[in-house]
Structure formats: structure tokens, C-alpha cells
């Protein structure tokens, strides 16, 4: 099926790849169906694109590409809600949403509320970490020394 995307024009998607977000994304509770889209010539970023509303597309990263020590603890009850039971954690993938600045150096990533996706059952949810040091705004390149 073809969908209209925010940045990549019309894109052909495979229906089996649609991820169902029962609760939506926080602030976008009415958007339930998303796809992950690769960005041509760029391995670091992807879009989490609503299949129904073209302007709703989140730029996401694999947090460990940027924050080696990122420590995420998801309660078992939360995992079960996503259909992930003990010893099935490999079915889950985690992305974090980027807020792009005028340059990449000024861009931030939300480490407080990762997006969890059950790859097998195609279910997703944004989860706010409990008792955490993380916030919604970490510089993508915090490890680098400024100019």
C-alpha cells in the first residue's frame, strides 16, 4: 500500500510492517498505526511515520548508537502488555525520539520516554521511565567537547 509521508513523499509500505500503538504516542493519542521508514543514505536515523497523517513523523534513533551506557529498565508488567514475556526480550526493539535543532549539534533526544516496539507482534508504546536520571532533552553529541 502507498502512504503519504512527511519527508519522503509517497512511499510503498508492506502492511505486515505496520506497528499498532494502542495508546498512540503521548500527545498524539489518536494515532495508532505507524511504520518505521529508513532514510536513504543514512543509517543513524529513521522515521516513525503515521500511516494516516502525513505530517506526524518522528525522527528516531537507536539510543545505544549515541549513548553507549543508556540504561533502560522496563517493568515486566509493561512488557507483558506489549506481548513480550520473560526470555522474549529479543523481540523488542527500542527507539528514542529526536528533536532536531538547526544543526545536529543542537539536536536533542528524549531518553526519558523510549518507544518500545514488539517486532513479532507489531505492537508499540511510548513508555516513561520511572525513577530515572534521564530527561526529554539530551544533546545527541553530548560526549563531544564543544568548539
Amino acid at each position, binding site marked *: 500500500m502507498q502512504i503519504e509521508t512527511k519527508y519522503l513523499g509517497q512511499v510503498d509500505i508492506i502492511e505486515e510492517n505496520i506497528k499498532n500503538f494502542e495508546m498512540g504516542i503521548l500527545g498524539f493519542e489518536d494515532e495508532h498505526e505507524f511504520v518505521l521508514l529508513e532514510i536513504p543514505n543514512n543509517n543513524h536515523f529513521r522515521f516513525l511515520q503515521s500511516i494516516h497523517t502525513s505530517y*506526524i513523523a518522528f525522527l528516531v534513533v537507536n539510543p545505544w548508537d549515541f549513548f553507549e551506557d543508556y540504561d533502560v529498565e522496563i517493568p515486566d508488567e509493561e512488557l507483558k502488555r506489549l506481548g513480550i514475556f520473560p526470555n522474549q526480550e529479543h523481540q523488542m526493539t527500542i527507539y528514542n525520539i529526536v528533536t532536531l535543532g538547526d*544543526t545536529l549539534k543542537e539536536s536533542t533526544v528524549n531518553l526519558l520516554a523510549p518507544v518500545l516496539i514488539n517486532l513479532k507482534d507489531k505492537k508499540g508504546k511510548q513508555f516513561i521511565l520511572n525513577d530515572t536520571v534521564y530527561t526529554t532533552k539530551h544533546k545527541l553529541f553530548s560526549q563531544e567537547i564543544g568548539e
Partner: protein
Amino acid sequence: MLILNRKAGESIIIGENIEIKILEVVEGKIKIGIEAPKDVNILRKEVQDDVKAENKASIDSKMNLLDILNEV
């Protein structure tokens, strides 16, 4: 909105298995104890509001987004 008056040491029960207890009131600050099943998420509302606001900010259009990404 249901409004109840409670004093320190008093509780309210929500549903079958959630108890919210007022532990202490000192100078306008209220210390609350919550007992709830593990599958109930408990959050400070401002934390959730912060995440919603950040999500909204993150989809603000940057039409040259693909150019910015290709800086790396």
C-alpha cells in the same frame, strides 16, 4: 471532579486495590503514599506533560531536515 477532605493519616480507596494515603502535611507540601498493583503506572503529571510537549516540539517541520541529517 470528586472532592474529598482528608487529614494526615487518612486514606482513600480507588477501585478494588488502590489506596492513596495522606502521610504528612507540612507547610503546603503533602506527602502521599500510594499502594497499587504493579501493573498500574504512577507518574507525576508534569512528567507526562513534559513528554507530550517534547513529542509535539519534535514534529515541528524542518523542511531541510534531510540536509541537516546528512551533516554526519
